[in-house]
């Protein structure tokens, strides 16, 4: 199993880095993030720890999270849909690899790619550090939240790409699911029923993300993210298995 996952991860990484998509997305991502960070930095006229957090760091991370919601589906869109279209999924399914190993392999390789994508922004806190910023715990929890959210986005993206042979449909379905989850926060705010509001809120990624961005590590948030990823793993697995019927 591990050997198989390792084999697939290496193959997928090779695929990722030999296609132009990753480079286009990386330049787009780092370009936009750099611009956003620069703008926040310039517009913040008072440099204190508090003002850096409120006017630079949090808005930058918010923008990053939002941007990744677009970029991750673009990375995952072809993962299963292309393999289905080229029939290469059958090739893999005929080997001894289990569908779960295939899903984990694709998940990990995409995560590694996004890890390096996000790592391009590690320079932002370093720049802030040069001007005396020192709240590294907050930086850590924010990055943790970004990576956990990325895991959630990848799991949704992989699921959507098993549904179709068309990459565009796959990416649109991913957007739909992710934005629906994003909008749950707003929905929770307008409902009169407190309990229903609370439940809806707990389903939303944004609600759980918020704790991290304020520097809190709360156990139920971890549980939320891991069960979220697990749930979409399950759906993806079912969807891949359904091909046999």
């Amino acid at each position, binding site marked *: 199993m591990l*050997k*198989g996952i390792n*084999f697939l991860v290496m*193959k997928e990484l090779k*695929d990722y880095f*030999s*296609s132009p998509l990753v480079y286009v997305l990386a330049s787009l991502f780092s370009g936009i993030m750099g611009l956003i960070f620069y703008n926040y930095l310039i517009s913040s006229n008072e440099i204190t720890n508090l003002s850096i957090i409120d006017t630079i760091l949090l808005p930058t991370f918010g923008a990053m999270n939002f941007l990744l919601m677009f970029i991750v589906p673009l990375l995952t869109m072809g993962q299963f849909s292309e393999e289905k279209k*080229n*029939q*290469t*999924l*059958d*090739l*893999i*399914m*005929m*080997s*001894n*690899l289990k569908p779960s190993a295939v899903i984990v392999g694709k998940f990990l390789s995409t995560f590694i790619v996004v890890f390096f994508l996000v790592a391009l922004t590690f320079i932002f806190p370093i720049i802030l550090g040069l001007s005396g910023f020192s709240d590294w715990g907050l930086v850590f929890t924010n990055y943790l939240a970004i990576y956990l959210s990325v895991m959630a986005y990848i799991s949704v993206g992989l699921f959507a790409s098993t549904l179709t042979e068309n990459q565009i449909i796959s990416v649109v379905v991913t957007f739909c699911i992710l934005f629906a989850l994003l909008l749950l926060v707003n929905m929770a705010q307008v409902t009169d029923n407190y309990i229903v509001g609370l439940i809806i809120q707990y389903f939303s990624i944004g609600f759980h993300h918020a704790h991290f961005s304020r520097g809190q590590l709360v156990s139920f948030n971890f549980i939320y993210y891991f069960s979220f990823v697990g749930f979409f793993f399950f759906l993806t697995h079912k969807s891949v298995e359904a*091909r*046999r*019927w």
Partner: protein
Amino acid sequence: MSSIAIELDQVVKEYPGRLALKGISFQVKKGRIHGFLGPNGAGKSTTMKIITGLLRANSGNVSIIEGERIGFLPENPPLYMNMKVEGYLQYVKNLYSLDKDHGGDSLEVIMKKCGLLDVKERLIRNLSKGYKQRVGIASTLVHNPEIIILDEPTVGLDPKAILEIRDLIKELSRNHTILLSTHQLYEANLLCEDITIINKGEILTTGEVSQIREKISGGQRLYVEVEGARSEILEKMVQELPIELRDQVLGDISSFKVLSKEAHDIRSRLSSFLAKEGCIVLSLKEETMDLEGIFKEVTFGVQDAQGN
């Protein structure tokens, strides 16, 4: 060599709202080229996918000879367009040998067999369809399978490529059991020792080509040209002799095909009958049946029932 490599027993496959396979049974003998014939949409690909385990049957049994691996080439070869030929074959080999090495020919030998040595450094996306097909066939060989299943391997290729692929399949049949689907009867006739004919999810006939030929043609098939035949005479002939008539063209010179229902030679009885009725037999030619004939014969009843 008479042992069974693949055996299907009453396999049923139902897609939502459509019964694709209505309980099919046949055997593929070890070491043979088995042709799987049928019109498009007959259920050939479905059957092949069930044998390879890519699809599950709703009921029925598929048994594959103990421990044998299967190399499967679907209708569209499963290729990664941005890989090079050698890299792709290496990838497939690694993919299938994660647990253990299955031995067999080295990639170099396989590429040589399939005529790929010249293109091994080229990207698959830039190859012609014929070469892509060869890469597909090569990829079924890398894990040294006993059984090779090819789904319409020559469809859409140019005549030269078709010839080359056919030679390759013949070459492979020395060491492998091959199940080959096609809707080209001519091709099956050239390549296969055994055939199974499928139509609308039902097996129409299965067995050795020569046996099927015998069974179906029954006695003889004659092509007859006569002068002065009238339809009454022909009707009378059908009543008096154990024959069926096909493809009648009546005129000054009439022609028709005669299918004898009995095994013995009917030519003398036929010509003396016609002479008695005052017709002049211009030609009397015996036809041996090729697969085309067999196919027409076995699908004839089916099409009749549907009123085509």
